[in-house]
Protein backbone atom coordinates (compact mmCIF):
# COMPACT_ATOMS: atom_id res chain seq x y z
CA UNK A 1 0.00 0.00 0.00
CA UNK A 2 1.19 3.48 -0.85
CA UNK A 3 2.61 5.00 2.39
CA UNK A 4 1.40 8.48 1.43
CA UNK A 5 -2.15 7.18 0.98
CA UNK A 6 -1.89 5.39 4.35
CA UNK A 7 -0.70 8.59 6.02
CA UNK A 8 -3.51 10.57 4.36
CA UNK A 9 -6.10 8.06 5.63
CA UNK A 10 -4.68 8.25 9.15
CA UNK A 11 -4.53 12.05 9.25
CA UNK A 12 -8.00 12.57 7.76
CA UNK A 13 -9.60 9.98 10.04
CA UNK A 14 -8.05 11.67 13.09
CA UNK A 15 -9.11 15.14 11.89
CA UNK A 16 -12.61 13.83 11.10
CA UNK A 17 -12.87 12.23 14.54
CA UNK A 18 -11.74 15.42 16.28
CA UNK A 19 -14.27 17.49 14.31
CA UNK A 20 -17.00 14.98 15.20
CA UNK A 21 -16.12 15.35 18.88
CA UNK A 22 -16.06 19.14 18.67
CA UNK A 23 -19.41 19.11 16.86
CA UNK A 24 -21.01 16.91 19.51
CA UNK A 25 -19.89 19.32 22.24
CA UNK A 26 -21.44 22.26 20.41
CA UNK A 27 -24.91 20.96 19.60
CA UNK A 28 -27.53 21.79 22.26
CA UNK A 29 -28.87 18.50 23.57
CA UNK A 30 -31.38 18.25 26.38
CA UNK A 31 -32.08 14.53 26.26
CA UNK A 32 -35.28 13.20 27.85
CA UNK A 33 -35.77 16.25 30.17
CA UNK A 34 -35.94 18.54 27.12
CA UNK A 35 -38.96 16.58 25.86
CA UNK A 36 -40.79 17.75 28.99
CA UNK A 37 -39.50 21.31 28.71
CA UNK A 38 -37.34 20.72 31.79
CA UNK A 39 -33.96 21.30 30.11
CA UNK A 40 -32.67 23.52 27.34
CA UNK A 41 -31.78 21.91 24.03
CA UNK A 42 -33.11 19.37 21.60
CA UNK A 43 -35.14 16.53 23.02
CA UNK A 44 -33.03 13.55 22.05
CA UNK A 45 -29.71 11.83 22.70
CA UNK A 46 -26.44 13.47 21.71
CA UNK A 47 -25.13 10.64 19.59
CA UNK A 48 -28.39 10.04 17.76
CA UNK A 49 -28.87 13.66 16.83
CA UNK A 50 -25.31 14.22 15.67
CA UNK A 51 -25.34 10.91 13.82
CA UNK A 52 -28.59 11.83 12.06
CA UNK A 53 -27.18 15.20 11.01
CA UNK A 54 -23.88 13.74 9.84
CA UNK A 55 -25.61 11.00 7.82
CA UNK A 56 -27.77 13.60 6.06
CA UNK A 57 -24.56 15.40 5.18
CA UNK A 58 -22.97 12.12 4.10
CA UNK A 59 -25.86 11.53 1.69
CA UNK A 60 -25.20 14.79 -0.16
CA UNK A 61 -21.43 14.43 0.13
CA UNK A 62 -21.55 11.01 -1.54
CA UNK A 63 -23.58 12.50 -4.41
CA UNK A 64 -21.11 15.36 -4.79
CA UNK A 65 -18.18 12.91 -4.70
CA UNK A 66 -19.47 11.37 -7.94
CA UNK A 67 -18.98 14.74 -9.71
CA UNK A 68 -15.21 14.30 -9.72
CA UNK A 69 -13.24 11.97 -11.97
CA UNK A 70 -10.12 11.87 -9.81
CA UNK A 71 -9.51 12.88 -6.20
CA UNK A 72 -7.97 16.32 -5.76
CA UNK A 73 -7.58 18.79 -2.88
CA UNK A 74 -10.38 20.91 -4.37
CA UNK A 75 -12.67 17.89 -4.62
CA UNK A 76 -11.87 16.97 -1.01
CA UNK A 77 -12.75 20.45 0.26
CA UNK A 78 -15.95 20.67 -1.80
CA UNK A 79 -17.17 17.22 -0.79
CA UNK A 80 -16.43 17.91 2.87
CA UNK A 81 -18.16 21.30 2.68
CA UNK A 82 -21.20 19.71 1.01
CA UNK A 83 -21.44 17.28 3.90
CA UNK A 84 -21.00 20.13 6.38
CA UNK A 85 -23.81 22.17 4.82
CA UNK A 86 -26.08 19.11 4.66
CA UNK A 87 -25.60 18.38 8.37
CA UNK A 88 -26.01 22.05 9.24
CA UNK A 89 -29.29 22.27 7.30
CA UNK A 90 -30.65 19.14 8.97
CA UNK A 91 -29.94 20.46 12.46
CA UNK A 92 -31.07 24.02 11.65
CA UNK A 93 -34.47 22.85 10.45
CA UNK A 94 -34.82 20.49 13.40
CA UNK A 95 -33.98 23.19 15.96
CA UNK A 96 -36.28 25.74 14.32
CA UNK A 97 -39.25 23.38 14.13
CA UNK A 98 -38.61 22.15 17.67
CA UNK A 99 -38.78 25.76 18.80
CA UNK A 100 -42.05 26.19 16.90
CA UNK A 101 -43.43 23.27 18.89
CA UNK A 102 -42.23 24.76 22.17
CA UNK A 103 -43.64 28.19 21.35
CA UNK A 104 -46.95 27.30 19.69
CA UNK A 105 -47.58 23.78 21.04
CA UNK A 106 -46.58 24.26 24.67
CA UNK A 107 -46.56 28.07 25.08
CA UNK A 108 -42.97 28.02 26.29
CA UNK A 109 -40.38 30.74 25.64
CA UNK A 110 -36.96 29.31 24.60
CA UNK A 111 -34.46 30.25 27.34
CA UNK A 112 -31.07 29.11 28.52
CA UNK A 113 -30.73 27.63 31.99
CA UNK A 114 -26.96 28.06 32.24
CA UNK A 115 -26.45 31.78 31.55
CA UNK A 116 -28.36 34.82 32.80
CA UNK A 117 -27.93 36.78 29.58
CA UNK A 118 -27.72 35.38 26.05
CA UNK A 119 -24.05 35.96 25.09
CA UNK A 120 -24.95 36.77 21.46
CA UNK A 121 -28.24 38.69 21.53
CA UNK A 122 -27.76 40.03 25.11
CA UNK A 123 -31.38 39.14 25.92
CA UNK A 124 -32.00 38.39 29.64
CA UNK A 125 -32.82 34.73 30.25
CA UNK A 126 -33.58 34.24 33.94
CA UNK A 127 -36.90 36.20 34.09
CA UNK A 128 -38.35 33.99 31.34
CA UNK A 129 -37.30 30.67 32.86
CA UNK A 130 -39.77 28.41 34.64
CA UNK A 131 -38.63 27.76 38.25
CA UNK A 132 -37.36 24.24 39.00
CA UNK A 133 -36.37 23.69 35.39
CA UNK A 134 -32.99 23.90 33.69
CA UNK A 135 -34.33 26.11 30.89
CA UNK A 136 -36.46 25.09 27.91
CA UNK A 137 -36.43 25.35 24.13
CA UNK A 138 -33.49 26.30 21.94
CA UNK A 139 -32.43 29.91 22.64
CA UNK A 140 -30.47 31.86 20.03
CA UNK A 141 -27.02 31.18 21.48
CA UNK A 142 -27.70 27.43 21.51
CA UNK A 143 -29.11 27.63 17.98
CA UNK A 144 -25.97 29.27 16.64
CA UNK A 145 -23.76 26.89 18.61
CA UNK A 146 -25.68 23.93 17.17
CA UNK A 147 -25.44 25.41 13.68
CA UNK A 148 -21.66 25.57 13.93
CA UNK A 149 -21.41 22.19 15.66
CA UNK A 150 -23.41 20.41 12.96
CA UNK A 151 -21.33 22.13 10.29
CA UNK A 152 -18.09 20.91 11.89
CA UNK A 153 -19.42 17.40 12.50
CA UNK A 154 -20.73 17.11 8.96
CA UNK A 155 -17.41 18.35 7.62
CA UNK A 156 -15.56 15.68 9.59
CA UNK A 157 -17.87 12.87 8.47
CA UNK A 158 -17.72 13.84 4.79
CA UNK A 159 -13.95 14.31 4.96
CA UNK A 160 -13.53 10.76 6.24
CA UNK A 161 -15.91 9.44 3.58
CA UNK A 162 -14.05 11.08 0.71
CA UNK A 163 -10.63 9.84 1.81
CA UNK A 164 -11.86 6.31 2.55
CA UNK A 165 -13.75 6.15 -0.75
CA UNK A 166 -10.76 7.14 -2.84
CA UNK A 167 -7.77 5.74 -0.94
CA UNK A 168 -8.93 2.97 1.42
CA UNK A 169 -11.70 1.29 -0.58
CA UNK A 170 -11.32 2.41 -4.21
CA UNK A 171 -13.49 0.70 -6.81
CA UNK A 172 -10.37 -0.96 -8.27
CA UNK A 173 -10.18 -3.06 -5.09
CA UNK A 174 -13.47 -4.77 -6.02
CA UNK A 175 -12.92 -4.88 -9.78
CA UNK A 176 -13.88 -8.57 -10.09
CA UNK A 177 -17.50 -7.63 -9.23
CA UNK A 178 -17.91 -5.61 -12.44
CA UNK A 179 -17.72 -1.82 -12.85
CA UNK A 180 -21.17 -0.88 -11.50
CA UNK A 181 -21.15 -3.19 -8.49
CA UNK A 182 -17.51 -2.36 -7.68
CA UNK A 183 -18.40 1.34 -7.52
CA UNK A 184 -21.38 0.63 -5.28
CA UNK A 185 -19.43 -1.63 -2.90
CA UNK A 186 -16.64 0.94 -2.73
CA UNK A 187 -19.05 3.75 -1.82
CA UNK A 188 -20.93 1.56 0.66
CA UNK A 189 -17.76 0.35 2.39
CA UNK A 190 -16.46 3.90 2.71
CA UNK A 191 -19.85 5.15 3.95
CA UNK A 192 -20.18 2.43 6.59
CA UNK A 193 -16.59 2.87 7.78
CA UNK A 194 -16.93 6.67 7.97
CA UNK A 195 -20.25 6.39 9.84
CA UNK A 196 -18.75 3.80 12.21
CA UNK A 197 -15.74 5.95 13.11
CA UNK A 198 -18.00 8.98 13.46
CA UNK A 199 -20.35 7.25 15.88
CA UNK A 200 -17.45 5.91 17.97
CA UNK A 201 -16.18 9.47 18.44
CA UNK A 202 -19.68 10.80 19.09
CA UNK A 203 -20.27 8.21 21.83
CA UNK A 204 -16.97 9.03 23.53
CA UNK A 205 -17.87 12.72 23.48
CA UNK A 206 -21.37 11.98 24.78
CA UNK A 207 -19.82 10.30 27.83
CA UNK A 208 -17.83 13.47 28.39
CA UNK A 209 -20.98 15.59 28.21
CA UNK A 210 -23.00 13.30 30.48
CA UNK A 211 -26.46 13.75 29.00
CA UNK A 212 -27.14 17.42 28.41
CA UNK A 213 -25.23 20.42 27.10
CA UNK A 214 -26.42 23.80 25.85
CA UNK A 215 -23.56 24.70 23.52
CA UNK A 216 -20.24 26.52 23.66
CA UNK A 217 -21.45 28.76 26.52
CA UNK A 218 -22.17 25.77 28.78
CA UNK A 219 -19.61 25.16 31.57
CA UNK A 220 -19.44 21.52 30.42
CA UNK A 221 -17.84 22.73 27.18
CA UNK A 222 -14.63 23.25 29.16
CA UNK A 223 -14.28 19.47 29.37
CA UNK A 224 -13.60 19.42 25.62
CA UNK A 225 -9.78 18.87 25.73
CA UNK A 226 -10.16 15.49 27.48
CA UNK A 227 -12.62 14.34 24.82
CA UNK A 228 -10.35 15.53 22.03
CA UNK A 229 -7.43 13.50 23.38
CA UNK A 230 -9.57 10.35 23.70
CA UNK A 231 -11.07 10.85 20.25
CA UNK A 232 -7.66 11.35 18.66
CA UNK A 233 -6.50 8.03 20.15
CA UNK A 234 -9.65 6.15 19.10
CA UNK A 235 -9.62 7.67 15.61
CA UNK A 236 -5.95 6.77 15.19
CA UNK A 237 -6.75 3.16 16.15
CA UNK A 238 -9.67 3.13 13.69
CA UNK A 239 -7.44 4.57 11.00
CA UNK A 240 -4.83 1.87 11.62
CA UNK A 241 -7.50 -0.84 11.41
CA UNK A 242 -8.63 0.55 8.07
CA UNK A 243 -5.09 0.68 6.73
CA UNK A 244 -4.57 -2.96 7.76
CA UNK A 245 -7.93 -3.95 6.20
CA UNK A 246 -7.10 -2.18 2.94
CA UNK A 247 -3.66 -3.73 2.88
CA UNK A 248 -5.20 -7.15 3.42
CA UNK A 249 -7.95 -6.62 0.81
CA UNK A 250 -5.37 -5.68 -1.77
CA UNK A 251 -3.56 -8.97 -1.16
CA UNK A 252 -0.88 -7.41 1.00
CA UNK A 253 0.62 -5.58 -1.94
CA UNK A 254 0.01 -2.19 -3.54
CA UNK A 255 -3.52 -0.97 -4.26
Amino acid at each position, binding site marked *: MDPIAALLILVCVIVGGLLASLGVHMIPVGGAPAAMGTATGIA*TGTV*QLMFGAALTGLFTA*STVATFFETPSPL*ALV*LVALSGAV*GAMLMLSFTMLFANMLYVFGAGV*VPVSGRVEVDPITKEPQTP*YKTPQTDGHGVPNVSYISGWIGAFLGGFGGALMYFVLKNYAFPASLFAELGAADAEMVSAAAAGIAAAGIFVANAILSAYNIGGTIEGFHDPKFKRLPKALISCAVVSALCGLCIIIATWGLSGGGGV
Partner: protein
Amino acid sequence: MPLEVLFGLLLLIAFLAFVACFFEDAESDTGSQSNPNSQVQLAAQVGYVHRFFNKAISGEPLSNCMYSTTACTVAWVLLRQFEPMFPAGEQWKAAILAIPLGVLAGEILHLIFATTAHLGRTAGQSRFQQPLYLDVFYGHLIPIITHGFMTTFCITCIAYLQANLGTLSGIPELNHPFPLPLLGFIWGITVGSIGSSTGDIHYGTEREFQDRPFGEGKRVVYHGMITRYADCGIRTQKDIVGFCIKYGCPLTGMTFGMIILFENWRTVLGMLGGGYLTTNLTVNSAAGAAAAAIGIAIGLIIGIALIFGNLYLVRWARKRYGPFVGE
Protein backbone atom coordinates in the same frame (compact mmCIF):
# COMPACT_ATOMS: atom_id res chain seq x y z
CA MET B 1 -38.05 16.26 -20.55
CA PRO B 2 -35.85 14.28 -18.12
CA LEU B 3 -35.31 17.42 -16.04
CA GLU B 4 -39.05 17.84 -15.45
CA VAL B 5 -39.27 14.17 -14.48
CA LEU B 6 -36.27 14.62 -12.18
CA PHE B 7 -37.83 17.59 -10.37
CA GLY B 8 -41.12 15.70 -10.16
CA LEU B 9 -39.37 12.73 -8.55
CA LEU B 10 -37.57 15.02 -6.10
CA LEU B 11 -40.90 16.53 -5.06
CA LEU B 12 -42.33 13.03 -4.68
CA ILE B 13 -39.39 12.12 -2.43
CA ALA B 14 -39.99 15.25 -0.32
CA PHE B 15 -43.69 14.36 -0.01
CA LEU B 16 -42.85 10.79 1.01
CA ALA B 17 -40.44 12.22 3.58
CA PHE B 18 -43.28 14.32 5.02
CA VAL B 19 -45.55 11.28 5.28
CA ALA B 20 -42.73 9.12 6.71
CA CYS B 21 -41.87 11.49 9.55
CA PHE B 22 -45.55 12.29 10.22
CA PHE B 23 -46.25 8.62 10.83
CA GLU B 24 -42.97 8.13 12.66
CA ASP B 25 -44.05 10.63 15.28
CA ALA B 26 -47.57 9.18 15.36
CA GLU B 27 -46.08 5.72 15.90
CA SER B 28 -43.84 6.97 18.71
CA ASP B 29 -46.92 8.52 20.36
CA THR B 30 -48.97 5.35 19.88
CA GLY B 31 -46.35 3.18 21.49
CA SER B 32 -44.77 5.78 23.82
CA GLN B 33 -41.46 5.07 22.19
CA SER B 34 -39.00 7.75 23.04
CA ASN B 35 -37.95 10.41 25.56
CA PRO B 36 -41.38 11.11 27.15
CA ASN B 37 -41.60 7.40 27.95
CA SER B 38 -39.22 8.14 30.84
CA GLN B 39 -42.28 9.63 32.56
CA VAL B 40 -44.46 6.59 31.80
CA GLN B 41 -41.69 4.48 33.28
CA LEU B 42 -41.46 6.75 36.32
CA ALA B 43 -45.22 7.07 36.88
CA ALA B 44 -45.72 3.69 38.54
CA GLN B 45 -42.72 4.33 40.77
CA VAL B 46 -44.33 7.49 42.19
CA GLY B 47 -47.66 5.72 42.74
CA TYR B 48 -49.33 6.71 39.48
CA VAL B 49 -50.61 3.38 38.14
CA HIS B 50 -51.58 3.95 34.52
CA ARG B 51 -52.92 2.39 31.30
CA PHE B 52 -50.20 3.72 28.99
CA PHE B 53 -48.38 1.47 26.53
CA ASN B 54 -44.80 1.31 27.75
CA LYS B 55 -42.67 0.62 24.70
CA ALA B 56 -39.17 2.03 24.50
CA ILE B 57 -37.32 -0.49 22.37
CA SER B 58 -34.38 1.89 22.04
CA GLY B 59 -33.91 5.45 20.90
CA GLU B 60 -36.18 6.23 17.95
CA PRO B 61 -33.31 6.61 15.46
CA LEU B 62 -31.89 3.19 16.17
CA SER B 63 -35.21 1.34 16.13
CA ASN B 64 -36.35 3.06 12.92
CA CYS B 65 -32.97 2.36 11.42
CA MET B 66 -33.42 -1.33 12.25
CA TYR B 67 -36.85 -1.55 10.56
CA SER B 68 -35.79 0.49 7.53
CA THR B 69 -32.52 -1.33 6.98
CA THR B 70 -34.23 -4.71 7.33
CA ALA B 71 -36.95 -3.64 4.90
CA CYS B 72 -34.47 -2.23 2.39
CA THR B 73 -32.20 -5.27 2.61
CA VAL B 74 -35.05 -7.73 2.00
CA ALA B 75 -36.45 -5.52 -0.77
CA TRP B 76 -32.99 -5.29 -2.34
CA VAL B 77 -32.51 -9.05 -2.35
CA LEU B 78 -36.00 -9.56 -3.84
CA LEU B 79 -35.38 -6.87 -6.46
CA ARG B 80 -32.24 -8.65 -7.57
CA GLN B 81 -34.33 -11.80 -8.02
CA PHE B 82 -37.37 -10.19 -9.65
CA GLU B 83 -35.80 -7.57 -11.93
CA PRO B 84 -34.38 -10.05 -14.49
CA MET B 85 -37.95 -11.37 -15.01
CA PHE B 86 -39.03 -8.10 -16.66
CA PRO B 87 -37.95 -6.74 -20.05
CA ALA B 88 -35.48 -3.85 -20.18
CA GLY B 89 -37.05 -0.56 -19.11
CA GLU B 90 -39.77 -2.21 -17.06
CA GLN B 91 -37.68 -3.38 -14.11
CA TRP B 92 -39.46 -0.90 -11.85
CA LYS B 93 -42.44 -3.28 -11.86
CA ALA B 94 -40.43 -5.61 -9.63
CA ALA B 95 -40.52 -2.96 -6.89
CA ILE B 96 -44.31 -3.20 -6.62
CA LEU B 97 -43.95 -6.58 -4.95
CA ALA B 98 -40.46 -6.33 -3.48
CA ILE B 99 -40.94 -3.14 -1.43
CA PRO B 100 -44.12 -4.16 0.48
CA LEU B 101 -42.63 -7.59 1.22
CA GLY B 102 -39.44 -5.98 2.52
CA VAL B 103 -41.41 -3.58 4.70
CA LEU B 104 -43.47 -6.47 6.03
CA ALA B 105 -40.26 -8.19 7.12
CA GLY B 106 -39.15 -5.02 8.93
CA GLU B 107 -42.52 -4.66 10.63
CA ILE B 108 -42.49 -8.25 11.88
CA LEU B 109 -39.36 -7.27 13.79
CA HIS B 110 -41.21 -4.19 15.03
CA LEU B 111 -44.08 -6.34 16.26
CA ILE B 112 -41.75 -8.67 18.14
CA PHE B 113 -39.85 -5.84 19.77
CA ALA B 114 -43.04 -3.93 20.68
CA THR B 115 -44.38 -7.06 22.39
CA THR B 116 -41.25 -7.92 24.33
CA ALA B 117 -40.54 -4.30 25.28
CA HIS B 118 -44.01 -3.66 26.70
CA LEU B 119 -44.33 -7.01 28.48
CA GLY B 120 -40.79 -6.86 29.85
CA ARG B 121 -41.00 -3.29 31.08
CA THR B 122 -44.42 -3.71 32.65
CA ALA B 123 -43.48 -7.00 34.29
CA GLY B 124 -40.40 -5.28 35.72
CA GLN B 125 -42.69 -2.76 37.42
CA SER B 126 -44.82 -5.33 39.22
CA ARG B 127 -43.11 -4.36 42.49
CA PHE B 128 -44.80 -0.94 42.12
CA GLN B 129 -48.24 -2.62 41.66
CA GLN B 130 -48.38 -1.69 37.97
CA PRO B 131 -50.73 -4.24 36.33
CA LEU B 132 -50.30 -5.58 32.83
CA TYR B 133 -53.56 -4.66 31.08
CA LEU B 134 -54.06 -7.17 28.27
CA ASP B 135 -56.65 -5.00 26.50
CA VAL B 136 -54.10 -2.16 26.37
CA PHE B 137 -51.48 -4.58 25.06
CA TYR B 138 -53.65 -6.15 22.33
CA GLY B 139 -55.40 -2.90 21.44
CA HIS B 140 -52.21 -1.00 20.70
CA LEU B 141 -50.25 -3.56 18.70
CA ILE B 142 -52.15 -3.05 15.43
CA PRO B 143 -51.98 0.79 15.54
CA ILE B 144 -48.24 0.57 16.31
CA ILE B 145 -47.57 -1.77 13.40
CA THR B 146 -49.74 0.15 10.92
CA HIS B 147 -48.15 3.48 11.76
CA GLY B 148 -44.72 1.83 11.67
CA PHE B 149 -45.56 0.24 8.32
CA MET B 150 -46.31 3.65 6.81
CA THR B 151 -43.00 5.06 8.03
CA THR B 152 -40.90 2.12 6.88
CA PHE B 153 -42.77 1.91 3.59
CA CYS B 154 -42.14 5.58 2.82
CA ILE B 155 -38.48 5.35 3.83
CA THR B 156 -38.01 2.26 1.64
CA CYS B 157 -39.70 4.06 -1.27
CA ILE B 158 -37.46 7.11 -0.74
CA ALA B 159 -34.38 4.87 -0.71
CA TYR B 160 -35.58 3.03 -3.83
CA LEU B 161 -36.29 6.28 -5.69
CA GLN B 162 -32.93 7.75 -4.74
CA ALA B 163 -31.00 4.61 -5.61
CA ASN B 164 -32.71 4.56 -9.04
CA LEU B 165 -33.26 8.30 -9.50
CA GLY B 166 -31.18 8.42 -12.67
CA THR B 167 -32.74 5.34 -14.27
CA LEU B 168 -36.28 6.55 -13.50
CA SER B 169 -35.67 10.10 -14.74
CA GLY B 170 -33.75 9.05 -17.85
CA ILE B 171 -30.36 10.37 -16.65
CA PRO B 172 -28.60 7.16 -15.47
CA GLU B 173 -25.60 9.03 -13.99
CA LEU B 174 -27.83 10.45 -11.25
CA ASN B 175 -28.36 7.10 -9.51
CA HIS B 176 -27.15 7.49 -5.95
CA PRO B 177 -23.84 5.70 -5.32
CA PHE B 178 -25.10 4.05 -2.12
CA PRO B 179 -26.99 0.74 -2.32
CA LEU B 180 -30.59 0.49 -1.13
CA PRO B 181 -29.84 -0.92 2.39
CA LEU B 182 -27.37 1.86 3.18
CA LEU B 183 -29.85 4.53 2.06
CA GLY B 184 -32.45 2.86 4.29
CA PHE B 185 -29.94 2.98 7.15
CA ILE B 186 -29.25 6.69 6.60
CA TRP B 187 -32.88 7.78 6.37
CA GLY B 188 -33.95 5.43 9.17
CA ILE B 189 -31.50 7.12 11.54
CA THR B 190 -32.44 10.58 10.29
CA VAL B 191 -36.22 10.11 10.43
CA GLY B 192 -35.89 8.77 13.97
CA SER B 193 -33.67 11.57 15.19
CA ILE B 194 -36.05 14.20 13.76
CA GLY B 195 -39.13 12.46 15.16
CA SER B 196 -37.42 12.17 18.51
CA SER B 197 -36.19 15.79 18.63
CA THR B 198 -39.29 17.52 17.33
CA GLY B 199 -42.43 15.47 17.79
CA ASP B 200 -41.67 14.31 21.34
CA ILE B 201 -42.11 17.83 22.66
CA HIS B 202 -45.84 17.92 21.94
CA TYR B 203 -46.35 14.60 23.71
CA GLY B 204 -43.92 15.15 26.57
CA THR B 205 -44.37 18.82 27.41
CA GLU B 206 -48.06 19.22 26.64
CA ARG B 207 -50.14 16.05 26.39
CA GLU B 208 -48.40 14.02 29.08
CA PHE B 209 -48.87 16.79 31.67
CA GLN B 210 -52.13 18.29 30.50
CA ASP B 211 -53.50 18.87 33.97
CA ARG B 212 -50.51 21.11 34.81
CA PRO B 213 -50.38 24.83 33.96
CA PHE B 214 -50.03 25.58 30.24
CA GLY B 215 -47.22 27.86 29.07
CA GLU B 216 -44.37 26.73 31.29
CA GLY B 217 -41.69 24.08 31.22
CA LYS B 218 -42.61 21.06 33.29
CA ARG B 219 -40.97 21.33 36.69
CA VAL B 220 -38.92 18.49 38.10
CA VAL B 221 -41.43 17.98 40.92
CA TYR B 222 -44.10 17.06 38.35
CA HIS B 223 -41.99 14.28 36.86
CA GLY B 224 -43.78 10.96 36.87
CA MET B 225 -47.13 12.56 37.76
CA ILE B 226 -48.59 12.12 34.30
CA THR B 227 -52.18 12.90 33.28
CA ARG B 228 -53.99 9.59 33.51
CA TYR B 229 -57.56 10.60 32.71
CA ALA B 230 -58.87 11.29 29.22
CA ASP B 231 -61.77 13.47 28.05
CA CYS B 232 -63.87 10.40 28.72
CA GLY B 233 -62.57 7.52 30.80
CA ILE B 234 -58.99 6.53 31.48
CA ARG B 235 -56.28 7.70 29.10
CA THR B 236 -54.36 5.34 26.86
CA GLN B 237 -51.95 6.06 24.01
CA LYS B 238 -54.88 6.19 21.57
CA ASP B 239 -56.03 9.42 23.22
CA ILE B 240 -52.52 10.79 22.97
CA VAL B 241 -51.97 10.09 19.28
CA GLY B 242 -55.34 11.68 18.46
CA PHE B 243 -54.17 14.88 20.12
CA CYS B 244 -50.58 14.99 18.83
CA ILE B 245 -51.66 14.28 15.26
CA LYS B 246 -53.20 17.77 15.14
CA TYR B 247 -49.94 19.67 15.59
CA GLY B 248 -46.89 17.66 16.68
CA CYS B 249 -47.02 15.09 13.88
CA PRO B 250 -47.54 17.51 10.96
CA LEU B 251 -44.74 19.75 12.20
CA THR B 252 -42.43 16.77 12.58
CA GLY B 253 -43.30 15.59 9.08
CA MET B 254 -42.70 19.10 7.79
CA THR B 255 -39.21 19.12 9.34
CA PHE B 256 -38.07 15.99 7.51
CA GLY B 257 -39.88 17.03 4.32
CA MET B 258 -38.17 20.43 4.32
CA ILE B 259 -34.76 18.88 4.99
CA ILE B 260 -35.09 16.43 2.11
CA LEU B 261 -36.61 19.08 -0.17
CA PHE B 262 -33.90 21.67 0.40
CA GLU B 263 -31.06 19.13 0.39
CA ASN B 264 -32.13 17.78 -3.00
CA TRP B 265 -33.09 21.18 -4.32
CA ARG B 266 -29.75 22.81 -3.61
CA THR B 267 -27.84 19.87 -5.10
CA VAL B 268 -29.88 19.86 -8.32
CA LEU B 269 -29.81 23.66 -8.60
CA GLY B 270 -26.04 23.47 -8.20
CA MET B 271 -25.88 20.88 -10.99
CA LEU B 272 -27.98 23.08 -13.24
CA GLY B 273 -26.10 26.27 -12.39
CA GLY B 274 -22.70 24.64 -12.72
CA GLY B 275 -23.57 23.18 -16.11
CA TYR B 276 -23.13 19.63 -14.82
CA LEU B 277 -26.48 18.45 -16.16
CA THR B 278 -25.86 19.89 -19.61
CA THR B 279 -22.37 18.56 -20.38
CA ASN B 280 -23.66 15.31 -21.89
CA LEU B 281 -23.71 13.98 -18.33
CA THR B 282 -20.28 12.44 -18.41
CA VAL B 283 -18.28 13.03 -15.25
CA ASN B 284 -16.77 16.46 -15.67
CA SER B 285 -14.63 17.68 -12.78
CA ALA B 286 -14.75 21.41 -13.70
CA ALA B 287 -18.53 21.47 -14.05
CA GLY B 288 -18.77 19.23 -10.98
CA ALA B 289 -16.72 21.67 -8.90
CA ALA B 290 -18.94 24.54 -10.01
CA ALA B 291 -22.06 22.47 -9.24
CA ALA B 292 -20.77 21.60 -5.76
CA ALA B 293 -19.77 25.20 -5.02
CA ILE B 294 -23.19 26.56 -6.05
CA GLY B 295 -24.94 23.88 -3.97
CA ILE B 296 -22.82 24.81 -0.94
CA ALA B 297 -23.52 28.53 -1.42
CA ILE B 298 -27.28 27.94 -1.65
CA GLY B 299 -27.15 25.74 1.44
CA LEU B 300 -25.26 28.41 3.41
CA ILE B 301 -27.80 31.07 2.39
CA ILE B 302 -30.67 28.84 3.57
CA GLY B 303 -28.80 28.10 6.82
CA ILE B 304 -28.23 31.79 7.55
CA ALA B 305 -31.88 32.55 6.75
CA LEU B 306 -32.88 29.88 9.29
CA ILE B 307 -30.76 31.58 11.98
CA PHE B 308 -32.69 34.81 11.36
CA GLY B 309 -35.92 32.80 11.40
CA ASN B 310 -35.06 31.51 14.88
CA LEU B 311 -34.03 35.00 16.05
CA TYR B 312 -37.43 36.31 14.95
CA LEU B 313 -39.33 33.41 16.51
CA VAL B 314 -37.60 33.72 19.89
CA ARG B 315 -38.04 37.51 19.91
CA TRP B 316 -41.72 37.15 19.01
CA ALA B 317 -42.28 34.58 21.78
CA ARG B 318 -40.54 36.73 24.39
CA LYS B 319 -42.59 39.78 23.44
CA ARG B 320 -45.89 37.93 23.13
CA TYR B 321 -45.65 35.75 26.24
CA GLY B 322 -43.54 38.03 28.45
CA PRO B 323 -41.49 37.04 31.51
CA PHE B 324 -42.54 34.10 33.68
CA VAL B 325 -45.37 34.91 36.05
CA GLY B 326 -46.48 32.63 38.85
CA GLU B 327 -44.72 30.84 41.62
